[in-house]
């Protein structure tokens, strides 16, 4: 697999701020992988994300996307068409009064042929399961539906990477599930690189890789199983662990000797059944 996004000791301070929001971040993201980024509030996750599509440009160090330096102003549109971004509040990223017009926004900006835009819009809406709603007014839809429209709006741009900044933070459990399964499908079935920033640890379970941010640097980086298996690390970072891992911790305290890398509910049940049957 090849590298698609690369951070080389990136430093960034917001204008007027005293403290650095990113202090020396180096990171390499593989094409086609599913990377989850977690960390407490204000740890620099959104700042990191905004460097991936040249909304922010590093003060020091550099970010490259598909080999292009993001500080190259002439390649701005190229970078942004390759890295789509979905934000937390669906209401503030939907631009049109009709679902299909909103999904068409990015390809329209890119000057794509009208008939091709139509195809892309239909394809993107089908992919997120919102095709029947193409004529609806977005403000009448549920939060999860709106967020899927926002995702469709990005897919229609045909990016290679999709970065989602806490896309489920404002959603109810049903909306969260809808969005998450869409995101997983994008990565696993359509080969898109996914960077998912989240507060919900159970959304990281299926990721290939998990990055923990703390105060502007990367505190830990590994597979979810590796990181969750280290209760001290999670505790130190003020992060929760998935319910399955909590259960395993609790059982181990009672004298069991269970592995901590079974994160999914099914796998967890399997491990416990084996242990009990022993």
């Amino acid at each position, binding site marked *: 697999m090849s590298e698609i996004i690369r951070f080389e000791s990136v430093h960034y301070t917001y204008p007027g701020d005293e403290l650095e929001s990113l202090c020396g971040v180096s990171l390499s993201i593989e094409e086609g992988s599913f990377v989850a980024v977690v960390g407490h509030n204000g740890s620099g996750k959104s700042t990191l994300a905004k460097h991936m599509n040249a*909304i922010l440009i590093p003060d020091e160090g550099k970010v490259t996307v598909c080999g292009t330096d993001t500080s190259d102003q002439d390649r701005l549109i190229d970078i942004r068409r390759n890295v789509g971004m979905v934000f937390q509040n669906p209401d503030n990223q939907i631009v049109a009064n*009709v679902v299909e*017009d909103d999904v068409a926004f*990015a390809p*329209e*900006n890119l*000057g794509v042929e*009208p008939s091709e835009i*139509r195809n892309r819009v239909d394809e993107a809406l089908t992919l997120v399961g919102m095709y029947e709603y193409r004529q609806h*007014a977005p403000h009448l839809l549920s939060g999860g539906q709106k967020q899927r429209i926002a995702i469709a709006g990005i897919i229609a741009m045909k990016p290679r990477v999709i970065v989602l900044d806490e896309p489920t933070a404002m959603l109810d459990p049903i909306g969260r599930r809808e969005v998450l399964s869409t995101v997983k499908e994008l990565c696993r079935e359509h080969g898109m690189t996914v960077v998912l920033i989240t507060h919900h640890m159970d959304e990281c379970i299926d990721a290939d890789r998990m990055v923990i941010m703390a105060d502007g640097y990367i505190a830990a980086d590994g597979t979810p199983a590796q990181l969750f298996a280290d209760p001290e690390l999670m505790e130190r970072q003020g992060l929760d662990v998935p319910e399955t891992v909590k259960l395993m911790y609790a059982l181990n305290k009672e004298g069991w000797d269970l592995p901590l890398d079974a994160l999914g509910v099914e796998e967890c049940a399997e491990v416990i059944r084996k242990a009990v049957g022993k």
Partner: protein
Amino acid sequence: MLKDITLGQYFPGDTIVHRLDPRTKLICVILFIVALFLAVNWTGYAIVLAATVIFMILSKISPKRIFSGLKPMLFIIVLTGALNIFYTKGTPVVEGWMITWEGIERAVQMILRITLLISGTFLLTYTTSPIAITDGLEMLLKPLKLIRFPVHEMTLMMSMALRFIPTLIEETDKIMSAQRARGADFETGGLIKRAKALLPILVPLFVSSFRRADELAVAMESRCYHGGEGRTRMKQLKFAGRDYVTLTLFVLFLAGMILLKRTAA
């Protein structure tokens, strides 16, 4: 309660009027208004009224809907009528009264004029989605780009405003409920007391609108928005046979009205 407010109401349908190109409808409304102001006698008003009724029937918009739209304007309509009745000189209806026959005639004509003016524009907004109207406007105003008038920016602003009206109304409702739960009272008291009660709503609404605008700008940039240059549209406006026919009919209608005015004068 705020949700009941509707601006530029659109009633989707599949009639010939709905299917007309928005540009055609915009031009026709302008021609219609000019024609209306050219009407100087009863024949003129009758023709304009007939044209309005024909379009009402073709678009399947019920008179009831038009009348309910007129309701907020009732005060202005009645006032105009009253002023014309009392302030037109001529033969009094009864010796010694201020009301004259000429006054009554003028009042009726003025009321007809306002009513037809509003009904005509309603027929446009009722049968054309707001987005189609702004798209049509953008296309029609394109020549103004030559004198550096920011046509794209202006129409984008209009469609963004339309997009955010429901969102802001919803938010206002939420803030009002929150303030009401803290004991705020928006329904009683004089004008000044009520205006004061609105302040704690407007402040948070403003603050959140600025945050929204900020996030929206970032989201638009992320989706490669870089101004109107090189931008294409998914839905292309296209004139069909019916558009040419309608436009021709309206030009003839206007020409007829001009002739009528000439002969009357």
